[in-house]
């Protein structure tokens, strides 16, 4: 069995931490060794998914003013704030040695990460398709791409995570939505720091991880370096990834209207025009149900405290017309709600927009 090359790059610039695994993939040939890269960025930055539109997803002015680079990756998913408290574990393997089925591929990739967390006393598990979780909280996401002749699978060891800045760097339609994103990250994302009460030694954790990789892959690991060719491609990609043209590349056909916190949880804001005025909903959805909800707008609804009662009463419901309209009618009746131009059916139409969000 051919050994797997391990290249520990330590801490590098933001753009290099992204460029380098793309470079190993682009330079990959039949003779290239399967490679595991370990790398962190010494500077905080925002990484955006391949199809995202930077202006729409990220508060670029804030990032510019605070010297936070924004780097587009050729892997999918959403915008994420990263700093030196994550060690990226990037696998660049030849296609024949990667499970063809995507779910299996993530199980294969996540196993050493899960086992490393477990060895540290954190009860992590793989939540298909591609999350790693601890008691319902996400501890790092993963992603995959076919780049050149290689298959790339990436994720991280999550030592710590800056919730505040993650919520701050995103472009969201309102501060209410930002609050909800912030609360949701706190509630649904975890780290080694949070689970253990301290940040474990990086080198020890990396050694543990590599040991688990060797076991799972059933292959020896061999420390190595990047080749001249890989460095050359990396330098080229660093230039491309730093360019305004690459950052502002147009997004794909579809725009996302939600911030995904983990596999089952997303936060979104929708607005709907009713005869009684504009209704704005900021909601957190969990497994397709309303997990948390704020209702606002320029409508009139009396008694005023009935808005809070509605928010409360709608929690836990699936985004389905019958269930929603029934519950809204019940609250209107029980509290003798007066809302000119905002009948239960109108509010329900606004709520149903949450169902179309992805």
């Amino acid at each position, binding site marked *: 069995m051919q050994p797997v090359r391990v290249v520990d790059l330590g801490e590098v610039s933001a753009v290099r931490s992204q460029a380098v695994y793309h470079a190993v993939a682009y330079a990959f040939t039949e003779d290239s060794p399967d490679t595991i890269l370990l790398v962190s960025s010494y500077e905080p930055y925002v990484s955006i998914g391949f199809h995202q539109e930077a202006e729409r997803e990220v508060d670029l002015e804030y990032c510019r003013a605070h010297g936070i680079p924004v780097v587009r990756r050729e892997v*999918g998913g959403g915008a994420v704030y990263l700093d030196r408290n994550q060690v990226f574990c990037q696998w660049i393997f030849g296609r024949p040695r990667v499970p063809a089925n995507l779910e299996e591929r993530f199980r294969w990739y996540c196993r050493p990460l899960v086992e490393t967390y477990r060895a540290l006393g954190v009860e992590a598990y793989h939540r298909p398709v591609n999350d790693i979780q601890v008691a319902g909280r996400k501890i790092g996401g993963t992603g995959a791409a*076919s780049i050149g002749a290689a298959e790339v699978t990436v994720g991280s060891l999550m030592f710590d995570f800056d919730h505040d800045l993650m919520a701050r760097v995103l472009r969201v339609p309102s501060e209410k939505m930002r609050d909800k994103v912030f609360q949701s990250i706190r509630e649904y994302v975890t780290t080694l720091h949070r689970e253990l009460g301290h940040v474990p030694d990086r080198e020890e954790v990396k050694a543990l991880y590599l040991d688990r990789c060797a076991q799972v892959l059933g292959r020896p690991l061999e420390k190595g370096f990047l080749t001249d060719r890989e460095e050359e491609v990396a330098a080229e990609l660093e230039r491309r990834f730093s360019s305004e043209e690459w950052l502002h590349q147009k997004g794909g056909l579809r725009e996302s209207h939600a911030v995904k916190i983990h596999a089952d949880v997303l936060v979104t804001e929708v607005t709907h025009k009713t005869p009684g005025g504009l209704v704005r909903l900021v909601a957190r959805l969990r497994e397709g149900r309303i997990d948390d909800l704020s209702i606002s707008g320029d409508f009139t609804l009396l008694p005023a405290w009935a808005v809070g009662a509605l928010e409360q009463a709608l929690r836990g419901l699936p985004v389905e017309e019958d269930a929603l309209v029934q519950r809204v009618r019940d609250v209107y009746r029980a509290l003798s709600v007066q809302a000119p131009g905002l009948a239960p059916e109108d509010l329900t139409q606004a709520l149903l927009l949450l169902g179309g969000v992805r």
Partner: protein
Amino acid sequence: MAVYRACEIPEDLYYDVDRDVWVRPESDGTVTLGMTDPAQAQCGKVVNITFKPPGKALRRGQSAAIIESAKWVGPFPTPVTGVVVAVNEEFRKDILLANRDPYGRGWLVRLRPTAWETERGLLLDGPAAVKAYRRKIDERGVHCIRCVE
């Protein structure tokens, strides 16, 4: 139409089995390309696509679109050299078209081929394509499912 492990392989199309792409010659001399049923099943629900724009000349093997599915991003390579004449804008309204109807409404791009006479010979069709796909489906343990909702 051949069906193997729930994967449909229409026998009236040409296939690049390695790249998982089907090709249909049209009466106006263009060719239509799309993802095969096993390809859409393996990639999972598509969440986004970026097409190469009409007018773009592509060599065989170059990417005609970049597809993002559940946490994977990869190229949609053309097995045919030619110029893009149309891309399927219907994906704007329904991003799951290829997951619902990979050989029909879920086509991806249409090209005006520039080397069709030579390149056609590199593709498989009819029983040869079905045989190659059966082998590939077995090797990869694919079982096809379609999106219906």
